[in-house]
């Protein structure tokens, strides 16, 4: 069974540019989560999809971040325009069902550097 995949693995962009990150969850997993780790800090929750619906987007930092999950399969996270403080590692995770008894499986992350 393929794990959670994320693309790209690394991205270096200039301030003001746009970047789109992609996450492919494990096949059949309805729940998809985005997290971010800014250097030296904790991994922070961004948002949670159940299928194509946003269940919880309380962690999205501002309206420069737009997440979508059309069709309930893969998800994209767009940052537009990117700022220096957006640099970090963006993780995606998926789980088959809702509820804390279900493990969240993490992808390898996308390292974003905004110059």
């Amino acid at each position, binding site marked *: 069974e393929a*794990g*959670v995949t994320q693309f790209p693995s690394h991205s270096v962009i200039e301030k003001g540019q746009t970047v789109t990150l992609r996450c492919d969850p494990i096949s059949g997993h309805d729940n998809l*989560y985005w*997290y971010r780790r800014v250097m*030296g*800090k*904790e*991994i*922070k*929750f961004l948002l*949670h999809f159940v299928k194509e619906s946003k269940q*919880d987007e*309380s*962690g999205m930092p501002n309206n420069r971040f737009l997440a979508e999950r059309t069709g309930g399969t893969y998800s994209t996270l767009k940052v537009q325009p990117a700022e220096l403080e957006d640099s970090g590692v963006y*993780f995606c*995770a998926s*789980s088959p069902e*809702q*509820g*804390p*008894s*279900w*493990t*969240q499986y*993490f*992808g*390898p*992350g996308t390292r974003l550097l905004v110059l």
Partner: protein
Amino acid sequence: AQSVSQHNHHVILSEAASLELGCNYSYGGTVNLFWYVQYPGQHLQLLLKYFSGDPLVKGIKGFEAEFIKSKFSFNLRKPSVQWSDTAEYFCAVSYNFGNEKLTFGTGTRLTIIP
């Protein structure tokens, strides 16, 4: 706001030493507790989790953790570490059933010296 504290940022041990990594969380309600590990170049993966029942939880690779509700703690232990345990360890908590977003600590980097 909910928070998780991991007091040790970097721990260096020799092989065969015993390990205990501290984790405390801030909220006193019903919690679900996790330890994740990230080996160099690999994904975050679950080591163990606690939801209810026996507060001593056993995980993979010989790790265990004990939930002490009165101390809001969930410390990770291993009696004898190996070089292959070199990794970053993250404690995480989720608070309400149906609100399963994870709140993480800042992580503890563990270096095992052969």
